[in-house]
């Protein structure tokens, strides 16, 4: 006869880099229930639309989160542009695509490092972040910010990348990819990692779809939801297939992210080889009047920015639905029935980004 005990997990925990609190109901070593609660970094950014004009709100949208910042800014701009029927120049769209994919590279490498750290694999963590540094250098060189790029604006982008720099970026991708290959080998084939991830945190294909999982969490269970297929920015001209894995456990989610790194590298190469010449921004006149659900694919999944304007320069509502919020129900399902020692690995396997989630 085992007793049930409730064990608090987070918001401060040695292996959890994110401030989320989960009450774990344990029977011996097994988790029978998990009750999440959030709100430790709630800043109420959505209400700031009433105080900031819509061109300045891009800066705030970008600062929702430090890891997916560029895509937040891009999605917000996309929403306002769709309301105002602005035709963004094609070069700007391609530049946005290139920066989005670099953001994805840096986010996935950061996650791989944290994931290794959650198993106590410090050396691999350091190596992932060392590789990520080269991505951040490219971002800083082209936009001026390592983490917050700030290069997206309503109607285009703020900075252009000269063609010589673009060529060099593509050349630098070759050594980067070879290092990525050996790192990916470790994540997908190393004995100790496989034994910590295979069969842990199962999420069936049906559950993933019904609970509304998005991004690598869903694709790791075989649901091929990838918003890049809707063809925003320049993705309509670049052919690519969503990366899926049929495993449905932590290993599957890890595999999806490792393989996405390579698909991102390919997308950057394609985008650079197809980039058109021309303007990088259009002049914006007037104020948005209408509403739009702007959707994009973040490293963590589908991101929705709802923008509603009423013809004044202050928007009525900006709603940011981040992928982590919709992955939480799947996380709760995954945690039921797992071992206590696996909790950090499972929580990290959905790539939580609590700063995004709470806005």
């Amino acid at each position, binding site marked *: 006869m085992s007793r049930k005990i409730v064990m608090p997990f987070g918001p401060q925990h040695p292996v959890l880099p994110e401030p989320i609190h989960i009450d774990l109901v344990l029977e011996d070593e097994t988790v029978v229930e998990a009750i999440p609660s959030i709100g430790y970094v709630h800043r109420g950014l959505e209400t700031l639309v009433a105080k900031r004009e819509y061109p*300045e709100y891009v*800066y705030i949208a970008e600062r929702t989160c430090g890891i997916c910042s560029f895509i937040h800014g891009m999605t917000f701009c996309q929403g306002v542009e769709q309301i105002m029927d602005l035709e963004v120049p094609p070069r700007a769209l391609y530049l946005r695509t290139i920066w989005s994919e670099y953001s994805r590279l840096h986010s996935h490498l950061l996650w791989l490092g944290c994931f290794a750290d959650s198993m106590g694999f410090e050396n691999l963590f350091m190596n992932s972040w060392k590789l990520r540094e080269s991505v951040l250098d490219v971002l800083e060189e082209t936009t*001026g910010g390592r983490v917050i790029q700030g290069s997206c604006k309503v109607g285009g982008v703020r900075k252009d990348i000269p063609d010589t720099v673009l060529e060099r970026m593509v050349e630098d991708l070759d050594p980067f990819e070879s290092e990525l290959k050996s790192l990916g080998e470790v994540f997908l084939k*190393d004995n100790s990692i496989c034994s910590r991830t295979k069969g842990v945190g199962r999420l069936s294909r049906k559950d993933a779809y019904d609970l509304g999982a998005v991004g690598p969490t869903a694709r790791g269970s075989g649901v091929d939801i990838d918003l890049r297929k809707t063809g925003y920015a320049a993705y309509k001209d670049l052919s690519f297939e969503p990366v899926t894995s049929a495993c449905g456990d932590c290993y599957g989610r890890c595999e999806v992210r490792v393989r996405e790194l390579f698909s991102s590298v390919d997308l950057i190469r394609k985008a650079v080889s197809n980039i058109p010449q021309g303007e990088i921004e259009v002049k914006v006149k007037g104020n948005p009047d209408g509403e739009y659900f702007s959707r994009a694919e973040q490293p963590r999944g589908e991101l929705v920015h709802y923008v509603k304007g009423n013809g004044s320069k202050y928007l009525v509502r900006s709603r940011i639905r981040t992928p982590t919020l919709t992955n939480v129900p799947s996380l709760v399902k995954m945690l039921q029935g797992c071992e206590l020692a696996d909790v950090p690995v499972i929580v990290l396997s959905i790539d939580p980004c609590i700063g995004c989630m709470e806005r």
Partner: protein
Amino acid sequence: MAFFEMARIAMGTLFRRPATRRYPAVAAKQMPLSRGHVTIDESRCISCGMCMRKCPAEAICVEKEEKTWKIDRLRCVVCNCCVEVCPVHCLFMDTVYSPALTEHAGVDIVNITYVKPERPAKKETAEEGSG
């Protein structure tokens, strides 16, 4: 299964130079575009207050009467917005990051030394600093 894949990577790093730099002793990496901190050319500022109104973090304060331009370095999020909206281009983005602080200071007060050039004596000269 891969054997000794990680060992290969770890051994490889033994024979390379360190990937990090000893930061305060060695200067941080800088690119020509890096956003470090905002500087002002006080001899050209016309105290129009555009940067103050547009600043997303409310870090800038322009006092017209006292002719001062204040910036709170701890509030500034280094977004480059003020540099873009300045009508006379007197704000610049320096590539050096603001130094770390041990106490809440960091409000830089700059006295604006701009003097409005005298118009030829046709009309009454307007008040200073109307922008």
